[in-house]
């Protein structure tokens, strides 16, 4: 269970929140000028990286506010939380734990228990 620092309420248990998937996905307007591919990617395609991920959360059992979050999905470490209207932090401001060729971090992935 994560502890998530809601920008409006402060740190709370993960059970109070719902995850909203990838953040900063731009919604094209609904007009017919938008191509099938562009619209299809907006509706159906989301990134699912191992490592640094920009994602949305909502404090659904709290203030019901949406906010953005940068999380390392390989270690579950929350690196930054910021409000919806705040600027997206730059990727290179975070240390990426993913080092090995297969993308497995040394620690915390759950796939290893023994030091190699």
């Amino acid at each position, binding site marked *: *269970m*994560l*502890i998530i620092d809601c920008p409006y309420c402060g740190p709370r248990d993960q059970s109070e929140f719902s995850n*909203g998937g990838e953040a900063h996905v731009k*919604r*094209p*307007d*609904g*007009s*017919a000028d*938008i191509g*099938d591919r562009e*619209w*299809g990617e*907006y*509706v*159906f395609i989301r990134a699912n990286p191992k490592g640094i991920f920009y994602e*949305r959360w*909502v404090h*659904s059992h709290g203030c*019901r*506010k*949406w906010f953005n979050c940068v999380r390392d999905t390989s*270690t*579950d470490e929350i690196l930054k939380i910021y409000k*919806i*209207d705040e600027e997206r932090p730059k990727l290179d401001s975070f240390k990426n734990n993913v080092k090995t060729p297969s993308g497995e971090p*040394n*620690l*915390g992935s*759950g796939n*290893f*228990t*023994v*030091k*190699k």
Partner: protein
Amino acid sequence: MSELNLTDNKFIQFHQKIGFKFDGVKYYGYKGDTIASALIRNNIKLIGRSFKYHRPRGFYTCGIEEPNALVQIISEFSEPNTRATIKKIYEGMEIESQNRWPSLETDIGGINNIFSPVFPAGFYYKTFMGPHKNFWKKIYEPIIRKAAGLGKPPKEFKAVSTHVNHNVDVTIVGGGLNGLIAAKSLIDTKFSVLLIDFDDQLGGILNNSNKVQSVNNQTPMDWISETVKDIENSKNIKILRNTLVTTYNYINHLIAVEDKFVGSRPLKDKVNSTLHKIRTDQVILSNGHIERFLSFQNNDLPGIMLCSSFEKYMCRYGVMPSKETVIFSNNSNSESLVFSLIKKGFKPKAYIDSRSGENIEPDLFDLIRKNDIPLYTNSQIKGAFGSKKLQKILVEDSSGRFNEIKTDFLCLSGGINPDVHLFTQSKGLLDWDEKDLTYKPAQAFQPTITLGSASGQFDFNSINKEINEKFDIFGIKPVQIDLELNTSHKFKIEKLWEVLPQKQTIWSKSFIDLQNDVTTKDIRQAISEGFDRIEHLKRYTTNSMGTDQGKISSINALGIVSDLLDKKVNEVGTTIYRPPYAPLSFAAIAGRNSYEYYDPERKSPIHNWHISNGAVFEDVGQWKRPWYFPINKYETMDDAVQRESKNVRENAGVLDGSTLGKIEIKGKDALAFMNLIYTNSFSKMKPGSSRYALMLGEDGMVKDDGIICKISDEHFIATTTTGGAATVLECMEEYAQTEWTNLNVYMNSITEQYATFNISGPKTRNIIEKVFPEVNFSNEAFPFMTFQFHEYEDTPIRILRASFTGEMGYEIYVPSNQAIKIWEKIINFGKEFGLKPYGTETMHLLRAEKGYIIVGQDTDGSVTPLDLGLDWMIGKSKKDFLGKRSLIRSDTVRKDRKQLVGILPINKNDKLEEGQHIILDKEIKTPMPMLGHITSCYQSPTLGHNFALAVIKNGQSLIGTKAFASTPELKTIEVEIVEPIFYDKKNTKLAS
């Protein structure tokens, strides 16, 4: 008699005799005894039968690591698989042994032991595969389930448990020597501390062995009581006893379960166990170590026990499992047992060590020599023999000679492992220590400190150094503890995993997992069949997959595997230790969220009226809705629904629609927002009018529907389906906050604030005019799809002219606290016109006759408004709304999409059913092309026969053609595909 002395101590109250029953026979123990210690007091050695081979088993350990001694507690809702080695007895306790029939002494299933050569690893996977796929489910599985396994599940169970949350700075897991030192050093510091121990007595190894002679020049017992008193008197440290930490999650989140009734019968309706959820900045793991066993032939016989467990029975419980035991060891952990035995005036029958004389601790060597104990160095036990209990052992000595020793007891030590379960659960990494032959914590992933033997620090003289180094982060005074030991301070071990038998036969067994009956032969076989990765091997052989998770044996298995594969143990790796550390009951996890509190029940404000008027209820999400109102207990639902729906068509009916979701939307940009959320356009709507509206997902599929009332451009009230209320509000909030942040709009749920009553039927106007005489209900003053606000006896109400039945009707919105008053008025004034309440089933029938869809029944997340023939609801001139662009996706404009149609049986006596497939051929042969299926189906009292709604491929163009509905018996029913409307096609009734 196997008792030592009978003077009371803090562990056992010898003056307090306790009677309990084991397999129907009454025995006596003392207050403080576990089931195991009390049975050993009564010279009981046989406690259960094994999982697969039904072999006789005894007490192997004295703690939570016990693989064999699992019992069923009859007096506690027949709780199965309880460890006899930790469960304390109380007066009147009833215990039964497990997995035996007809009795523990004579067990028919023991025949499995004779047939064991045909039950190798993977036996079930390989054998029970044919001749027909049903054989497994119908024949093999029931037989195997009866024969194998442990305890029986309890029949009734009503345990009470509760959850408690903690937020502390430091949590110390384990209150042994290191845990107490750690806690003591944190007394009266700025840190809030939780000290958790599984035992009811803190002290760990100080209580359970004679390893330590004195601590800070005090006896261990005096030091413990003084330290515990200091901790208890401190303001910042809380002790949780009888509490087992089972889980170590991310962000230092620990789960621990506390037994509230230790040594007494759990009281009914009192909290039996508490689940502690702990958040902490720093975790200190000082949860000690576990001794492991050794594999040799018949190493499972009753009468074989681990060395440290024997010592614990002596020191802690004052009971001698045997006066003449043989000891077999490969490490220095057996030294303190020899010391304890001699101190109490007993002598081991023989001491066998696989190490050579010069590697044995000098003190131990002297002790053995001085006391004339037969010593076998460089020797190994080749096998143990006996019927239902140990009778003799076979020892191969250093010269290679075989010696038979008659004995009824044997103590084993195969080394010690730090208890790394919690550490690995926290995602810390382990490293193999080639000197101490065990995995030790190497690198923590979270803020975790390991102390003492839990960290792999087996040297008593290093305690001060270790704790002062690791506690540097707390900035507290250094610790200084002076220990005097009875045994050597260092741990030494020589590699030994398995002793091969003198003669290998197909029946010889050296166990590697006692609980799951896995032998070393199974390990060899698995490797020879290619299961040489440790995770595969574990699952194929079921090694360490019992409830004890191989606590005394899993490292031995790794050792054997690494030798067989000629790899380093680190290369073999270890299986992942997953929570929980030991089984915990579902009752503890559920806490208060059980039975009627499992899920909240939502009730309409006039729920009690429904009850007193005999309603039968239906669950709609969390809501309890009246399903139908039978006139007496003999009326079936079908009859009631026919009667209720006929009454609505002929007179009038009233439905409690309070569960409908209601959302109020306000703000300067409310109109623009509603235009974006729903498919319809609300721009040209006059204030005071309402509109049936659809909400789509971004994929263009129908997500919800409802009626939107426009009070002004800045104020709307939307209704949603009962089940969709929460998701619609969530969706509105999401788009308002994340997508259209420029819009000034607010929304709130008002579902619970208002009750909704739907009156409909030809006599509606007569009734409602009587209830609200001051309102003009004429067609001109109150046209279809408009609404008005009124005051009724100081109650503000909103009346909406709308219908979900096809009859003319009104919906009345009343504040919940006034709801019953209005409802009873409607019922009373309606009596003379034949008004009757009706339930959800009648509502479904009536709306289907009219061809109104129910989102989620006639749609399934793959249906667009066009598929439903609802093109007219799409605001074509709008530039954007949710899902608009998806309505011209290649998939949504396909010609052969499934579309909503009506279905009528050709033969009017035929009955259709929901879920039936619609096909074009009369004969069913596979593969059968299927057009679609029936989504709603009812018997109509108005039409006098069955009718249905269905979604079928290209349905709109098939209207007027014949087709067939298939039945599960592979028969077909001839049907006609028709327009999806069966009643009042011209809508004359709605506007009448």
